[in-house]
């Protein structure tokens, strides 16, 4: 079975986000970028399935600016076999919307015919949590989102999902889309020899026009602003003082 894993280049999760003074967006110039953490978990899961012998080939896809090549190389260094970059934006500040990404991925799926797509449940930049579900809709496939456990049993994937109230296990017919949550696995680091080897793995470049997909946005960003700041609080010296303040000052207990 072939597995397709979409990966996104996003601001590194440790970087402090700064909103641009003119309200046009978040400043991404000269900021450390990395693979979306949920996508790393997706890549790792695909590699583990390959190590178990369930999967023969892992194809990673990224849609965005050409620097997303670095993200794809990271995935190749972790253990993916082949990469496709869809050059869909010139400016790092352009975020291709999940619907457009899903349409491009649907075309890639048509060409590649994977048995399974494993994706991160959400990207930590736009926090939309949508691409996997949208891709699944466009393909008419089953979906298993927010996975914390994945087992392949014949033509089915048995997936345990993190839901409100606990865990839900469902069985989906493959081909299917699985989106992964934090607890699925701990992604490996790429070793230096593997990073060197990854440079020689195939990376194909495409454009949205190659797939006949219009990526123009449906949502116009009117403005981007700083969230409301919380006023600085006070330090208390004891539990007694804390309880007194909560009772008499804040009135919450």
């Amino acid at each position: 079975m072939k597995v397709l894993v979409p990966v996104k280049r996003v601001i590194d999760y440790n970087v402090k986000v700064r909103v641009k003074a003119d309200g046009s967006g978040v400043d991404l110039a000269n900021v450390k970028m990395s693979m979306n953490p949920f996508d790393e978990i997706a890549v790792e899961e695909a590699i583990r399935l390959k190590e178990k012998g369930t999967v023969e080939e892992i194809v990673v896809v990224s849609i965005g600016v050409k620097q997303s090549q670095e993200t794809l190389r990271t995935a190749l260094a972790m253990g993916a076999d082949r990469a496709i970059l869809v050059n869909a934006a010139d400016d790092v500040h352009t975020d291709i919307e999940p619907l457009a990404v899903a349409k491009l991925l649907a075309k890639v799926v048509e060409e590649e015919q994977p048995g399974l797509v494993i994706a991160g449940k959400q990207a930590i930049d736009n926090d939309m949590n949508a691409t996997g579900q949208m891709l699944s809709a466009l393909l008419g496939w089953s979906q298993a989102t927010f996975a914390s456990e994945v087992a392949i049993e014949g033509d089915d994937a048995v997936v345990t999902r993190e839901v409100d109230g606990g865990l839900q296990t469902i069985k989906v017919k493959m081909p299917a889309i699985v989106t992964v949550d934090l607890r699925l696995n701990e992604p490996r680091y790429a070793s230096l020899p593997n990073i060197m080897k990854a440079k020689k793995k195939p990376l194909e470049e495409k454009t949205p026009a190659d797939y006949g997909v219009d990526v123009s946005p449906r949502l116009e960003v009117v403005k981007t602003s700083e969230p409301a700041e919380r006023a600085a609080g006070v330090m208390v010296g004891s539990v007694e003082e804390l309880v007194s303040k909560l009772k008499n000052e804040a009135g919450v207990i």
Partner: protein
Amino acid sequence: MAVLLLAEMTGGEFQQDATAKALTAAKQLGDVTVLVAGDDVAAAAGEAAKLDGVSKVLAVSDASLANYLAEPVAALVAGLAGDYEHIVAPSTANAKNVLPRVAALLDVMVLSDVTGIVDGDTFERPIYAGNAIQTVKSSDAKKVLTVRTANFDAAAEGGSASVEDGAAAADPGLSSWVEDKVEESDRPDLTSAKIVVSGGRGVGSEENFAIIEKLADVMGAAVGASRAAVDSGYAPNDWQVGQTGKVVAPDLYVAVGISGAIQHLAGMKDSKVIVAINKDEEAPIFQVADYGLVADLFDAVPELEKAVG
């Protein structure tokens, strides 16, 4: 200007609080029809009809909808979409699973975790773990959105909408439910509790987490956890508060042994009063806390429990 609001059905049970909060948002957009979908929703539909401001309840009972699997529910909602300009649901795990699928079936974008409604086309939503708020204007004919319940007050009861029965869409039969593992608890629900007591990595073990739970019980609070505590196995996944967990805004949030990573702050910084107890005085949680106490949690928490008990 008609709005279809998906009633939240967690584990087949009608969730009044989440639904009533999303209703407050939906009412700003137009005339609200509530869709109650599940295995047998007669009672749930009756409860939804009592919410103030509901024009009509559409009750769809079908075995295929029992576990709110994405494919049959999305097919149902997309099939009903013709009559509505807005499709709204509270930002629950169910809605996050289903609504993007609905949006793609309708060839429109989804708007996730809306925190503010500017007008019928324009919405505010947090991005980058709540470190920025984006105002976006949709050019789509239909708007499909999930709303953050922490940002809207619950609509009151007092309505008496009519209930109409509807039919499910054909089930493509692509997926099936195996089991739910749900912790039964007498504690208030995390997303609607007035007080939340959360523990972090500092708590140290699953056994130690009992002191967080005891404090919560004395205070009549829900229990939350940081990602670090959940990843370490101290607390179950559905207690996680943060960017990718639950977003809460209680009257009082007590953070115990939580350092305050931005991903955690994203899930609780709209709380009215925040208390932080941490032995590290440099912990970033103190920057958002109204009241900070530098102390060993194993001394402070039992003392606090005694003082408020």
